[in-house]
Structures are given as C-alpha cells and as structure tokens.
C-alpha cells in the first residue's frame, strides 16, 4: 500500500479526528461548533479528493483530452458546504441565545444551573405533597 501517495486521505482522517475530539472534549459551546466545522470540512476534503483523477480534465468533449474526471462529487460538496454553513449559523445563533439566558457558554456552568432548576421543581413537587397533607389536617381540625 502506498502510504505517502494517499496523503490526502491521511489529512482527511487526521482532520476528522481533530474535529471529533474537539466536539467531545471541549466545554465551551463555541469551541464545540468550531470542532464540528472541522469535522464537516474533513468530509468535504474527502469527497473532493475522491472525485479527482490524476491528469484528467473536466468533462469537456475535445479531441485533445482522453481522461475526464466526474464533477459530481464536487457539486455534491457545494450542497454540503451550504448545509454546513446553515448548521454553523444556527448553532451560533443558539449560543447567542444561551449566553443571554444563562449568562455563560461553558457547559458545566449551564448544567449546574439546569440541575438547580431541576432540584427546585423537585422540591416544589414534594412541597406540594406536604401542603396536601397539611390541608387534610386543616380539614380535620
């Protein structure tokens, strides 16, 4: 197997893993989105290098050229880039709203606030039970 000749695929794999690692390991919501973008970009590279045939040209019928490479993967990636941009924009918009609502974009701080909300609603549920018991007592009196 020609390891150096496949260098573009190695770049794809390395980028993909960097991106995936950043998404999983980082706490900061913006950094996660950056990781996600790198992850998606690696797939764009993958499609583009897959569609390339060495020495081939675009499919323009001419006597001078014998070898053509199929432009379809590149066209697909134009679509995928648009989707990627939309996803990143959507993610960033959500991060702005999260910052407004929680005052933080660090995952553990947000989770701490959520846990507190959860605890409060739990207490409310049990508090209700107490009140419920109290009201029966009141009735008895």
């Amino acid at each position: 197997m020609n390891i150096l000749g496949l260098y573009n695929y190695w770049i794809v794999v390395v980028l993909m893993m960097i991106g995936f690692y950043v998404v999983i390991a980082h706490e900061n919501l913006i950094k996660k989105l950056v990781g996600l973008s790198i992850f998606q970009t690696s797939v764009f590279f993958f499609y583009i290098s897959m569609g390339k045939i060495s020495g081939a040209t675009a499919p323009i019928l001419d006597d001078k050229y014998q070898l053509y490479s199929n432009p379809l993967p590149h066209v697909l990636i134009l679509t995928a880039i648009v989707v990627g941009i939309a996803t990143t924009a959507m993610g960033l918009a959500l991060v702005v709203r999260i910052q407004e609502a929680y005052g933080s974009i660090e995952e553990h701080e947000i989770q701490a606030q959520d846990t507190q909300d959860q605890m409060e609603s739990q207490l409310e549920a049990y508090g209700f039970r107490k009140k419920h018991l109290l009201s029966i007592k009141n009735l008895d009196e």
Partner: protein
Amino acid sequence: MIEHLPILQVLVPLLGAPLCIIVRNPRMVGLFALSISTITFLVSCSLLQQVLQNGTIVYELGGWAAPWGIEYRIDYLNSYLLLLVSAMSAIVLVASQSSISRELPRNRHMLFYTAYLLCLTGLLGILCTGDAFNVFVFLEISSLSSYTLIALGNDRRALTAAYQYLIMGTIGATFIIIGVGLMYMMTGTLNMYDLAQRLPEVHNSKTVLSAIGFFIVGVCLKLALFPLHLWLPNAYAFAPSIATAFLAATSTKVAVYVLIRFIFSVVGPVFVDTVLPLQEIFVVLGVSGIFATSISAIYQLNIKRLFAYSSVAQIGYMILALAIGTPLGLTATLIHLFNHALIKAALFLAIGGVVYRVGSAQLSHFAGLGRQMPWTMAAIVAGGLSLIGVPLTVGFVSKWYLVLALLEKGWWPLTILVLISSLLALIYVWRIVEWVYFSSPRIVLDEVKDPPLSQLVPIYILVIANFYFGIDTSLTVGISKKAAEMLFGGVF
C-alpha cells in the same frame, strides 16, 4: 398533474414555508399552514391509492434518466409512511393555533409555521427520494428546522436541548454522508436502486464495510437508538407542545424508515446478516434500551420527559422487531411505526391541552385534573392503555405481532422480556393516573377546564384512531405485510 404527484408531495410544503412569512397575520398563517398540510395529505392518499393499484411509481426529476438524475421511487413502504407523516402533520396543525397562542409570542407564529412546514418538507423528501445523497439533504432540512422548532420553547432549557440536538444530529448526518461517500467511491452511483445492484460486486472490500458502519451509526443517532438517545428527552420536554407532538409522531419514524430502506433495499438483508453482527447488536441495544429508558421514564417528574423516555423505549421495540430478520418481524416494526405515531401524537397533544390551561407539564401540576379536565385526562389514559398494549388498542396489535415474530423465531427469553417490559409501561402510566385521579387538585381555579374544541377534536380523532386501528387492522397490517414481503423479495 397526476404523474407529478411524487414531486408535488415535497414541493407543496416547500413552497408553503416561505409563503408563511409573507402571510404574517398570526391567525391567517395557521389556517394557511393547515391548508398546505391538508393538500399534502390528499396527495399522499392519492399516491397510496396509485401504489396499491399499479405498484411502484418511478418519477424522474426534471426528466433526467435515473443514474444521472435524481429519481423518486414510491412503493408500498414509503407510500404508507408518507400517508402517516402527512396525516399526523395535518391533525397536529388543527390543534396548533390555540396551543401556540399560549406558548409563543405573536410575532413568532409565522416563524413557527415556516419551520414546521420545512420540517414536514424534509421528512416527506426523505421518504420520497431514491437517491442516497438526496436523503442527506432532506435529512438536514428536517433537522435544521426541528432545531428551530425546539429552540422556540418557552423554557431556557429548550435552547440547550436544541444545541445538544444540533451537535449530535450534525455528527449523525456527517456520518451518513461519509457512508454515502464511501459507497459512491466503490460503485460510482448514488441511486439506491443502482447501489443495490453494484454493491454485491464489491461486498468483500473493507471500504464497503466501513461505509455501512458509518451509515448505520449515523442513522441510529437520528432515530435515537438507546445509547445514542441522549438528545431526545430534553428536546421533547422543552419544545412547544405542538412541535413535540409533531416530532414525536414523525421524525424518529422517518429515521427508522431510512434504516429499513438502507438495510433491505440498498445493501440487502443477506449481506447484513452474514457479514456484520448487526442482528446481535440490535437485539442487545433494543432490549437494553427498552428496559433502561422505561425505568428512567418511571422516575420522571415532567410528564413530557416521561413520554419522551417512553418514546425511546418504543424505538427499542421497533429495532428489536427489525433484528429478528424475518418478514413477520419487519411487519411488526412497520405496524409499530404507525401505531406508535398514533399513540404519541394523541398523548402529546393531550399534554399540550394541559399546558394550554395549566401552563406546565410537571406531574405534580396534574394533581386532581381528572375532575377539572375530564376529556383531556381520559385521552391521556386511553393513550397510556394503548402504550401498555391493552387489547382493542393499537398498542396491543403491535405487541401481538412482535410476540408472534419472536415466537416464530424461537426466541423465548426475549418474548418474556418484552412482556415484562410492558409492566414497566404500566407503572409509569399508573403514576400519571394516580396523580390525575387520586390526589386532590392543586390549582383550584375556575378557568382550569378542558381545552377548546380546536384542540379536543384532533386529540379525539387520534384517540378514536387508536381504537379503530386496534380493531380493524386491515390497513396497517395489510400494507405492512405487503411492504415486508416486497423488501424480503428484494424487489425495490
């Protein structure tokens, strides 16, 4: 006109979505979205009728022949699901107007409907298309719009839920395009029908194996199979009630469809069974998912979250039935797809009715509502019974076919586990019944009564459907059987 129905199915909601922004007026826009959705429902009815009469419909987009152009293929399997998705969407939209008037500010109504119709477009597109890359594009249309729908929720946790879903959903979708890319690399085609013919020649290559691996993991993220379900409970719990009802009834079902289509029509069941240990993986994940999430559901305090966990458990049943790998097992999956959509749409719409009056989906706020909202609570109990699988409900039909398929295969221990798991459903439904009927009301206000008719009518259409399809199973079982036979026959 009639031969263009497959594309109209997708085009009508796609064009309707931006028009919602032009309509603007909060009252009009609801009616407009409802009429668009009704048109798509009628289109899907007529498609199903055509498929039942003449068999598979092949539609070439823009007149380009198949391997070059994109092709839409409508057969038993997807016409059945098209009917389900468009019907659910139309019914849910009937209830939407009054429900979102409480949950969303007026200036966001048109955006809600735009996102809703786009999500519908994406889901219908996934079902129609016969092109592997097109599946990805429509998947992203539906996903992006469902992130928007979820983020519109009132609670700030809706935002984090949408963010989490965005991260996991995008990873899933990216895995899917990696899989499609690897398959394209080996076969030079994106058309599913072509792929099915060319993949067997290259079955031995590691590239195809990794393609299948990536694709299946990506789809399983989207359909929330047990260990990959983490995005789902919060997303369902904090989205606006209407969005929850719509997504719970349709979006995971469509992802299950993608998995079925991929396994049976693209790579072929024989290959999946012999080369990959997929059957074992699905059985283990399905059963552990059923138990883990049903037990989580028992401990939930938010009733939307409770039913969200139960949704993940129901997906476990579908995957378990799929893993059996017999036509009867696949029939059970397809029946449960339909039935579970009916159950969850009814339940989440009824909960939406409670949120409309009480303003919360906390279990403790349901105390004593049995007397104040008798019709809504009766609907929740009916849905709950169906979820457990009581005879005469659709849930029973699903469980019956699942158990039949398991017995036919001779998997005794799993049959017993499935029956035990129904008891877990009994426990979480009973918890609700206990709060609703056996504790005294917490909010003693006159205004707490059943929601307006515009919500009660769709709830009861679904509840009646729950019983109707539990008694007369000719539509669901009939088409599911035909679809299963077709998929096992290898005819696409």
